[in-house]
């Protein structure tokens, strides 16, 4: 190997590093390290002139290794690799010492000493770095979108309109998600179905979109640009090709159960579409309710179906897809408020959740759009309780972001349908979006009672005449500093938005992470809001965190743009830091074969040697650490490189008396 000529570049990052780390001291220290031919510092090494400094030195001093002491490699490794590559240095001959995130930003004292140790370690490691070649592989130019709520719909349309193939997989019989359950939407009060159904129809008829409803992703393998996906299609027992969507089967079916779409407030048949404008407009038969599956009888639907589309012998099907990018848009659930026993949900009549209220308001809902109590009468007073489980460390610590606004919307809807007095029981009014404050003002003008306080209790234990037959909301009005008892007829709870019940499984399937709040984690909260820890997998909409429709749509389009820029590029570079087997040393023990999570290691029965497939290997290094013959090298993380780094980190502490 050639004699290393290392250049060290120390970044001030304005005062971010220079404020706590003594740059001069560190630079002089670095200059004295073996192999270092130049050590320089600069205000912002990542800037144009900063990069130029590096490039010039590589050219003029003949540097063959570069160490940059700056922010985390997760921030700018790519930037600096590109810079050195531009002057002909292999990008893998660059080493970063993270003296910002893990040093200057977190230590008041001792950051200079630590910076020195980190730089010494980086220099020693750089001594042993080797050039690696990246390979390019072609990208499959299609995208998988998982979840057909407004997020999935928007992303799918964006991509399809750019003339790329989209597979849209939705678990329910129809797309539409939560938005299609809503009545009117804040802050403009436009009707949800009116604005959503045209988009749903566009999805249903788009030549570039293959819609797979009543389906779920079962397995994902492969890597960015080349994913292989298995989708399980549940049997509908209705032939989509033959069905004309006339709905006669639904009319004739005698069997009923609670409608999931109507939050259990209404009924649906055993053969059903969740709602009239469903896309696709092809019913499904629910085998748990249909008696044909239990007793072999009935078959009313079959008798009456004009095109003979009922297909009892349909079986579950698994389809394999190949896609270049994946967009996860699986949305959210509502927190079940029953554990908050003080609010009496499911125990007291006329305590309902917000989504139940939405269904009640909908003209196609279980009450035909009328706002009624259990006994059929109209409420004279309604209390809306905000933050049920949100902003509460006992349930969900975060703010659900839409409740204040939809609660305001409810004041208006209640006013449209009844003469009821409305009480908003809030902790803080959060009306931060475009048009939101204006909406708040408009509703204040419409005459709503605002009571600031977190409700302690909803009870039917009355204390006095005026409470007879009412639900009593007990709270401190924190602005008055007085306890209030508010007798009302109906209580609407605004439960926290939570991650889908199966979020854990979904995260595992797509190799993405979840945050402390349970939602899927974006790679960077500001600069990479839709990327995930898995290259080529993006997350959009409420699957990433609570948000309203405008934000969901914007994010969905962002996800589509990311996916498009990936598949339009045509090729992707694949990791060069993979594992490689030294044929001389491999004893053929096969231990590594079972360990590799990607089945990237094969065994050559003839030569009795293990072999790593470069394209499948992701460079995790599990096999490297496990090989008993030390025959596998983890490129860019070799034992020698890591030992050198450890050595460098510890060179200033007491030397050992014995070696291992």
């Amino acid at each position, binding site marked *: 190997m050639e004699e290393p000529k290392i250049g060290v570049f120390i970044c001030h990052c304005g005062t971010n590093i220079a404020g706590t780390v003594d740059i001069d001291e560190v630079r002089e220290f670095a200059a004295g390290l073996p192999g270092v031919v130049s050590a320089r510092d600069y205000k912002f090494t990542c800037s144009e002139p900063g990069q130029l400094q590096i490039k010039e030195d590589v050219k003029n001093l003949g540097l063959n290794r570069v160490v940059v002491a700056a922010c985390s490699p997760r921030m700018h490794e790519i930037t600096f690799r590109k810079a050195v590559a531009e002057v002909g240095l292999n990008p893998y001959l660059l080493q970063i010492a993270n003296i910002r995130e893990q040093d200057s930003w977190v230590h008041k004292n001792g950051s200079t000493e630590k910076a020195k140790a980190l730089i010494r370690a980086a220099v020693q490691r750089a001594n042993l770095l080797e050039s690696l070649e990246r390979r390019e592989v072609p990208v499959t130019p299609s995208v998988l979108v998982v979840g057909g709520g407004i997020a999935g719909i928007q992303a799918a349309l964006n991509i399809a309109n750019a003339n790329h193939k989209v597979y849209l997989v939705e678990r329910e019989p129809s797309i539409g998600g939560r938005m299609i359950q809503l009545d009117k939407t804040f802050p403009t009060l436009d009707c949800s179905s009116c604005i959503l159904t045209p988009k749903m129809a566009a999805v249903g008829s788009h030549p570039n979109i293959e819609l797979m409803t009543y389906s779920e992703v079962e397995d994902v393998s492969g890597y960015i640009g080349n994913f292989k996906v298995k989708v399980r299609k549940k049997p509908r027992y209705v032939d989509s090709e033959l069905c004309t969507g006339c709905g006669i089967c639904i009319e004739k079916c005698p069997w009923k159960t609670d409608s999931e779409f109507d939050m259990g407030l209404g009924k649906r048949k055993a053969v059903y579409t969740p709602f009239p404008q469903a896309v696709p407009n092809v019913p499904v038969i629910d085998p748990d309710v249909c008696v044909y599956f239990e007793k072999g009888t009935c078959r009313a639907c079959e008798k009456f179906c004009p095109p003979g589309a009922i297909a009892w012998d349909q079986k579950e099907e698994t389809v394999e897809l190949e896609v270049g990018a994946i967009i996860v848009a699986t949305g959210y659930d509502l927190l079940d408020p029953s554990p908050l026993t003080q609010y009496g949900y499911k125990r007291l009549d006329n305590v309902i959740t917000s989504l139940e209220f939405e269904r009640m308001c909908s003209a196609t809902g279980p009450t035909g759009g009328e706002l009624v109590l259990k006994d059929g009468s109209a409420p004279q007073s309604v209390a809306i309780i905000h933050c049920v489980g949100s902003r509460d460390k006992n349930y969900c610590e975060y703010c659900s972001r839409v409740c204040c606004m939809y609660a305001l919307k409810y004041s208006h809807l209640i006013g449209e349908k009844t003469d009821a007095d409305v009480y908003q029981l809030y902790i803080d009014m959060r009306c931060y979006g475009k048009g939101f404050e204006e909406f708040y003002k408009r509703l204040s003008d419409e005459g709503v009672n605002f009571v600031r306080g*977190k409700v302690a209790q909803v009870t039917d234990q009355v204390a006095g005449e005026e409470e007879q037959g009412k639900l009593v909301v007990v709270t401190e009005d924190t602005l008055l*500093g007085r306890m209030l008892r508010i007798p009302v007829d109906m209580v609407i709870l605004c439960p926290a938005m939570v991650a889908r019940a199966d979020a854990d499984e979904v995260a595992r399937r797509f190799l993405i992470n979840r945050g402390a709040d349970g939602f899927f984690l974006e790679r960077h909260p500001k600069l990479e809001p839709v990327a995930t820890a898995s290259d080529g997998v993006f997350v959009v909409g409420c699957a990433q965190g609570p948000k309203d429709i405008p934000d969901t749509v914007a994010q969905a389009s962002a996800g589509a743009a990311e996916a498009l820029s990936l598949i339009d590029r045509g090729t992707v570079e694949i990791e060069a830091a993979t594992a490689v087997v030294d044929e001389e040393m491999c004893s053929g023990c096969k231990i590594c074969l079972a360990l590799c999570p990607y089945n990237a290691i094969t065994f050559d029965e003839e030569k009795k040697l293990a072999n790593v497939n470069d394209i499948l290997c992701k460079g995790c290094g599990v096999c490297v650490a496990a090989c008993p013959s030390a025959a596998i090298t983890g490129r860019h993380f070799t034992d020698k490189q890591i030992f050198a780094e450890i050595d460098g980190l510890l060179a200033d502490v007491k030397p050992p008396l014995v070696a291992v």
Partner: protein
Amino acid sequence: MVRQIINPYKEAVDIVKEMGGEALRLCYQCGLCTGACPWNVLKSFPVRKLMHEAQLGLLDFEAEDMWACVTCGNCVQQCPRGVEIIDVMRAMRRTIVALGVGPVPDSLRVTMKNLAGTGNPWGEPTEKRADWAQGLNVKPFSNGAQMLYFPCCTTAYDASVSRIGKATATVLQKVGASFGILGSKEACCGESARKAGDEELFQRLVQENTAAFAESGASTMVVSSPHCYYTFMNEYPIAQNGLQVLHSTQYLAGLLREGKLKFSKEVKKRVAYHDPCYLGRHSGVYDEPREVLSSIPGVELIELPNNRENSICCGGGGGNVWMETKPGERLAEVRAEQALDVGADVLALACPYCMLMFEGCLTQDVLDRLELRDITELVAEAM
């Protein structure tokens, strides 16, 4: 308009924070605590407002409110920001006691003086601490005994509460347990002192008792009071010293599960159980008392509307047992009314303070209709 100057007691407020009221910074003034606090059924007790006053340094240390909290924990259990409200209340009282920035209620001051002098709240002579057991053949604890019984000052000295100790001793004897008491060698657990803000006194009592327990060599201790139980479990170095502490209902439930608790008589009564704050919310013991009660032949166990986690304090916690409560502002009355409403003949208790509070607060008319019995009493009766 009156303008208030911020921070008249800056030091005092810093001390409130220092003395354990630190979590107070998290309060976002939602008011749930006020709504959850049982006092607000009877009178105004602005818990949330106190938190904000403490945040800004505007506490009125002279106010009666400083002493109202019964430390029942209902607010803490629900606070969405995890504010340790009781710690804040205790810190305020500690500030008053330590710095003299406000008055300590007379009755409480006397109680603390007694505690300091004699190790019990009444100032009764220490030698009399074992008198409750006279005639019961209860032995002083010796090394050979299986366990130590710690009755609580109230049981030991209060004439109307000592029946708890007697019943417990009787049950222990009937099941053939080998046990003993420390008598004059033990002192109050100090819980009231701590909640009343007298930290110094509390620490002294901790030291005295810890030494006495260690010297006795006991490995198991049964206590009658949930207050002693909570304090030993959470604020004494007892676990480290290898001493196992059980509340009497836990011990009885254990016997029951082992088949060692046998009954021979029926107690035909409708019994409602009142969860003491320090056994329930503070210690999480809800099932054992119910297990024991429902095993007694003849007992029909009924639940009060506020039960388990939602139980209402008797009004005695946080040192309130030693202070005057005005008629019409007594939580015990609310509780008794609930028991009568559900048709109970007996209100079953598991705490000497509760017993003292109910005995002291209820009118004869109510007492005629509602019997107050400790769980151990009912067990003893049925054996």
